[in-house]
């Protein structure tokens, strides 16, 4: 459905996307995971045919965006990062006007609008102005709007950024239903849980490049252990000294836990210990006489994959 080879985007001297390859199959749900500035949005804008590619090739529905941009956009729904609703208009007017951009007859626009408002659970708000709606409702309306043209492919740029947990779950549920209907989803996110919830397959981007590709589970299996033990230590305590840990003391703290688990990551506020069995690792920590201030055993996530691949956390 989408095929990119050596795809590149430059703005002056700045390289936003540095030669990436990927394919998206029909019906698939494909994600770009990465921190801000990784090149996700630039890639989405090229796929969306609103940003010319600098080099490489890009084909969507087998068409070339540089010559068939309008034809590609006609078959694609776009949910942008920031809502672009007409705040003066009512909920249903927003949908009808958007449908008209695709030259869908007015009566058909109204029929689809009613159906979509049911789908995104906004039917009782149909004739209200957009302005007073909550962030989650506006997002759902934006998704409804992107579906007015009954697209084969839906692009979602950070669909749940800035939403509260409940609103996110409603949105994920709706997107999951779309996926079940066979709509191809392409989304960007910097949330690991979102990628794990929604994506069949994803690429991890960093600095304009793809650093890993696979299914969420596959990436975790490949780049992390089954479980992670998170430790919060008073490092000074570990080595029996009072407050004010120095670099040397930090070293000692690390020495004290050396060898526990398969691999360790030291973050400013905690230490991550990657181990197949997190509880066993925690038992070993206790056995060595270390009393952490806090500890947590969890399953490893894409966050850990990202940390492993780039040495940095996803959200600073």
């Amino acid at each position, binding site marked *: 459905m989408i095929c990119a080879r050596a795809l590149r985007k430059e703005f002056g001297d700045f390289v936003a996307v540095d030669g990436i390859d990927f394919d998206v199959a029909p019906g698939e749900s494909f994600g770009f995971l990465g921190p801000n500035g990784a090149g996700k949005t630039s890639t989405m804008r090229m796929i969306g045919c609103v940003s010319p590619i600098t080099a490489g090739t890009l084909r969507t529905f087998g068409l070339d965006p540089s010559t068939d941009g309008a034809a590609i*956009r006609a078959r694609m729904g776009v949910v942008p990062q920031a809502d672009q609703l007409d705040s003066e208009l009512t909920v249903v007017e927003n949908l009808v006007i958007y449908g008209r951009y695709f030259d869908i007859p007015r009566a058909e626009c109204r029929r689809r609008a009613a159906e979509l408002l049911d789908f995104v659970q906004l039917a009782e708000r149909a004739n209200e102005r957009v302005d007073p709606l909550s962030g989650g409702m506006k997002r759902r309306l934006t998704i409804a709007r992107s579906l007015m043209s009954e697209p084969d492919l839906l692009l979602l740029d950070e669909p749940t950024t800035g939403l509260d947990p409940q609103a996110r779950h409603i949105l994920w549920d709706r997107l999951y239903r779309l996926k079940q209907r066979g709509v191809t989803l392409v989304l960007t996110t910097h949330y690991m849980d979102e990628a794990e919830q929604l994506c069949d397959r994803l690429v991890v981007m960093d600095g304009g490049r793809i650093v890993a590709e696979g299914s969420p589970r596959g990436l975790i299996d490949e780049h992390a252990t089954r479980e992670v033990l998170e430790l919060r230590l008073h490092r000074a305590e570990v080595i029996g000294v009072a407050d004010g840990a120095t670099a040397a003391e930090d070293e000692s703290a690390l020495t004290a836990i050396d060898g526990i688990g398969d691999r360790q990551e030291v973050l400013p506020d905690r230490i991550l210990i990657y181990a197949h069995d997190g509880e066993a690792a925690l038992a070993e920590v206790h056995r060595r006489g270390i009393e952490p201030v806090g500890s947590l055993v969890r399953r490893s996530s894409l966050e850990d994959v990202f940390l492993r691949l780039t040495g940095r956390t996803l959200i600073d």
Partner: protein
Amino acid sequence: MTTPTTIRVWESEYAVYRKVWKSHVLLAFVQPLLYLLGMGLGVGALIDVNADSTSTLGGISYFAFLAPALLATTAMMSAGQASLWQVLDGFFWGNRYRAMAATPLTPGDIATGLAMWHATRTAIGVSGVAAVLVLFDDTRSWGLLVAVPVAVLTGLAFALPITAWSSTRHGDGSFPTVIRFGLLPMFLFGGAFFPIDELPVWLQPVAHVTPLWHGIELCRGAVIDSVSPGNVAVHVLVLVAYVAVGWVACRIAFARRLAP
């Protein structure tokens, strides 16, 4: 049958306008009426008793001199204001033009559709002024039917260059300046309230290159038959040139902003 892409943009602008049309029509109608009463009749009463003044105006009453010019000034003000915040909003706050650009519409379609909408909106405002002029003996003329499209052309000569400018902005800081030091001086000194022959000599060429003066001369000429055919051609040509350059600039600016 497919709807032309530019008409789809126009429809969208119209849908938004329907929410605010009352205030626009009222303003376009009331403001010129106030000028007509205050300046045309009030100040006019002082001017018309002076024979020298009347000959300066070409032998007509001050009311007949001023009233047709208000078609052009209203077109300028209405079109100018619709080309500032409302245009930037489409790229910057509300982003409605970005939403359009994600559909089959191209930046060029959006620019041209918006230009067509500017023409429509200006026509609505100017028609309100024309309706007022019909009420007075001095300006009740078939020439108003010519003056209205001429005023729309004048409005576009402002709307399109200003729209192109607005679509390159990243904030509205410059907009009050455009009004205060661009539109307002033209309104006052562009030949609506007194002939530009009365301006200091060095200022007259400035008035000659502004679109407003040409629009005023044409509107006045249409209503009170005061302009020669040769001058009509020049005035129309200047306005068309502003519109053409503005339209091309809009298309370029929209493409740069929407598809970087």
